[in-house]
């Protein structure tokens, strides 16, 4: 685990470029989303014990802490989705030479989603 993290950091540090940054972020966000998928299913799994347990679990997720995590997931999904589309454009449209500009679009899109999500988060927490 520690070796893996160190390997990822070295990979990015030694080959620093938009391409390797996009790859590393795609991998890290993908792993985070796999864990989120399990957590999401586990929360929905409270429905196996009936409506009371489900509503209690949903109620427990309304704190600012979980709202923040939820907002982070939205941004993580946005990056993974935009970069996934970028990878497909590069591969299927043969736009390898435009991959840096495409990465800028991906980052721009993810930052825009982050701005919107951040706004929603603060509006709800401060309300």
């Amino acid at each position, binding site marked *: 685990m520690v070796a893996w993290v160190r390997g990822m950091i070295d990979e990015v540090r030694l*080959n620093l470029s938009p391409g390797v940054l996009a790859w590393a972020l795609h991998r890290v966000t*993908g792993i985070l989303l*796999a864990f989120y998928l399990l957590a999401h*299913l586990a929360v*929905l799994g409270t*429905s196996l014990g009936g*409506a009371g347990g489900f509503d209690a679990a949903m109620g427990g997720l309304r704190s600012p802490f979980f709202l923040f995590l939820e907002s982070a997931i*939205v941004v993580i999904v946005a990056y993974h989705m935009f970069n996934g589309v970028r990878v497909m454009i590069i591969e299927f449209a043969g736009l390898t030479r435009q991959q840096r500009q495409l990465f800028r679009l991906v980052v721009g899109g993810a930052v825009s989603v982050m701005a919107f999500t951040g706004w929603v988060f603060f509006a709800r927490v401060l309300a």
Partner: protein
Amino acid sequence: MNTAGDAARADAAAGRRGFWPWLLQRVSGLFLAYFVIVHVVMLHFLREGEIDASGVAERLRESTTMQAFYAVFVVLVVFHAFNGLRGIALDHVSSASGTRAVRVTVWALGLAIVIYGFVVLHALTGLRS
């Protein structure tokens, strides 16, 4: 730092992953973009108030389209997640026994989670408050 050795190792790793896992990761990803957007828009923009058991059950019971949507969503997302994790694992494992362990683990966990997802979807549909 892009030496011939690195390139050869990358080719070997890509070869181990196979054509179909590569293509299906793109196809499932493209569909997931649609499913995730529809899911988030439905739950957070086309709906008022907090998410609760009666609302979830009502939406699912009212329409078989909705049930089918989530059944397909579960399969797609678990496939995409475990195919992705498999690719990462194969970057670090190259022995025959290791590759087999990765294959068995990914299939076993993936199938178990798809079944769990279906069970949960069924429970959500049947919720009564």
